[in-house]
């Protein structure tokens, strides 16, 4: 049996839209993943939890409109600690398609905007985790 994918879902900053992140958390849980719901965290704490819980994936939920800045700061924190290759970073929330390319360039592995269907999120996470495992084996 495959090892269960471990995901940390978290909100950074003060943006308090909680239902998106809980819904996606539940979707991933129902898809057989182990989900750690982090609630509100500072970036530093979120990365701490991700390390301590040994997760494969970090899911950031952002509804404030400031997704580019937050993702940039998050990736900077990962780089600072030499962890940028450690996690699959996915971002979801009220994010216009317009900004998807930019977020991916900064370091998000995938972005889920309004109206994304659950299967797409599950599939994307499964594929990316698998791909990363293969890469590690190759090394």
């Amino acid at each position, binding site marked *: 049996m495959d090892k269960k994918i471990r995901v940390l879902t978290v909100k950074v900053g*003060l943006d*308090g839209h909680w*239902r998106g992140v*809980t819904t996606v958390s539940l979707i991933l849980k129902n898809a057989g993943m182990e989900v750690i719901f982090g609630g509100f965290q500072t970036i530093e704490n979120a990365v701490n939890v991700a390390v301590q819980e040994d997760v494969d994936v970090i899911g950031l939920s952002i509804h*404030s*409109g400031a997704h580019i800045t937050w993702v940039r700061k998050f990736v900077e924190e990962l780089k600072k600690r030499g962890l940028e290759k450690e996690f699959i970073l996915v971002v979801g929330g009220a994010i216009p398609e317009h900004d998807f390319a930019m977020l991916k360039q900064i370091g998000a592995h995938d972005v889920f905007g309004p109206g994304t269907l659950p299967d797409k999120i599950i599939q994307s996470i499964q594929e990316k985790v698998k791909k990363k495992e293969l890469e590690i084996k190759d090394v």
Partner: protein
Amino acid sequence: MFKEEEINNIKAEKEKWVENTSCQKDADTYRLTPSGIKVKNIYTPSDIAELNYLKDLGFPGAYPYTRGVYPTMYRERPWTIRMFSGFSTPEETNARWKMLYEEGETGFSAACDILTTSGFDPDSPGVDAEVEVGTGGVPLYSIKGVEALVEGLPIDKISVALVTEVTATSLSAMYFNVAQKRGVPLTKIAGTTQNDIGTMPLSLMCRDSISPDKLLKLACDLIEFCTAMKQVPKWNPINFTTYNCREGGINAFQEIAIGFSAAIDHIEELLRRGWQIDDFASRLAFHLSADRNFFEEIAKYRAARRIWARLLTERYGAKNSRSVAMKYHVQTAGSSLTAQQPMVNIIRTTIQALEAVLGGCQSLHTNSYDEAICLPAEESVRIAIRTQQVIQEETGIIDTIDPLAGSYYVEWITNEMENRILGYMKEIEAQGGFIKALINGWLYKEMRKAFNERQRSIVEGKERIIGVNCHVIKEEERHVPFKTNPWAADIEKERLRKLREERDNQKIAVLKDKLRRDCEKNKNVMPSVMELTAEGATLGEIANIYREIWGIWELPIAI
């Protein structure tokens, strides 16, 4: 309303009609509304045989207010066009408000940024000002910001809504001080503070919030100060904002039941303080949603007014007609809008605006078509205002009051809605009331259940959303989103730096101690908060005193 014999004839004729036509029997033709009400293919007088016109409907401006709260309704004065608006800096929001006013807006409404609504300053520890200041609304951290927001606007003539909850006492005090400075006495200013304790814990998580029972205390302090103590008598010190819960996926009857249950907790607290119901109930207002199902929403408004009138009269013995008449603002449902094919949102919003108007709202915000993507741009907000103006000025819809009354279906579904609202209020009561249901996590579970069910029905295609799960366009043109000012954080930090340099910090320290004592002794905080904000104390500083004295609440949310 009908004679028994006539009802029997109608029933007999209907049976014949069913037999003689290809039409199916009721049981086979039910369609479910989003609230789960079974709707038949046709309604007749037999469905509302028990309806008593004078007892259940009456006249507008008269008990039980089913047909509207004012005798003249929109014939004398149409509802207030009140657009929820704010972004970047107070100055930029002020320019937008002036544009809205010139386009025909008749009331202002401040959308505040997350720091303002949560009670943080841009320089508070752990706050990333760069991403939070002015991105979700207007930053109003001190009296200086509020001054800049309403600069040059006729606040003596036009009402202003301050949409904030946890920081309601401080922001209201700042506004009251600004009005006085501008020479407008507190007895003259009109407006509303949202002051809804359900919004932050239930609809949005608030970082470092005090607990719901302390939020209730502060909310009641503002009601007591403005209304009961008659300090700001034309101000609505609270707006039970069921809109925000509704956006989380609950249905129409849950929305009203949650709002009324919250109102009951406030009423009980104010009665406990020794006030009479008519000392404060006239200014308890609501902020409701206009969601997707046209008739169900209209029924919701009509049923809500009837329940409120009976509740206030029968349970609380209110005598003042203003206490008994339920007044409310409506916002069209943001959650019904899609990022895909955004122009379709104009049509959704128009239909929802019609629900609000046919339901008898007192003021209305129509969403802009780009709101599933970004804060609204000028062009889109103009169309949103025009939507209301078309209804007011071109269509004749407002020529007569409550035009849908007497429709067999509308009266039937109004009754259905009433029963369901009352039933759900009992469920909340069984949890110990609104505050208890919030603290014990029951309301979160209800919201999560509703939201997940809705999500499932969208995925399964049971709920059709044009552009998302049906009528999809393959290659959509990308909407270029409106962006807020990237320098807002620097501007606001500088505003606070200057303020802290100019103000009398010793005096503020003394006043802060006074507020600490008020909190400890459970006194009304408003007099101290009025003084503090006048002297230049910031939202974050005042919120920190509440946190310091009362502690921080852990939200009972789990997945």
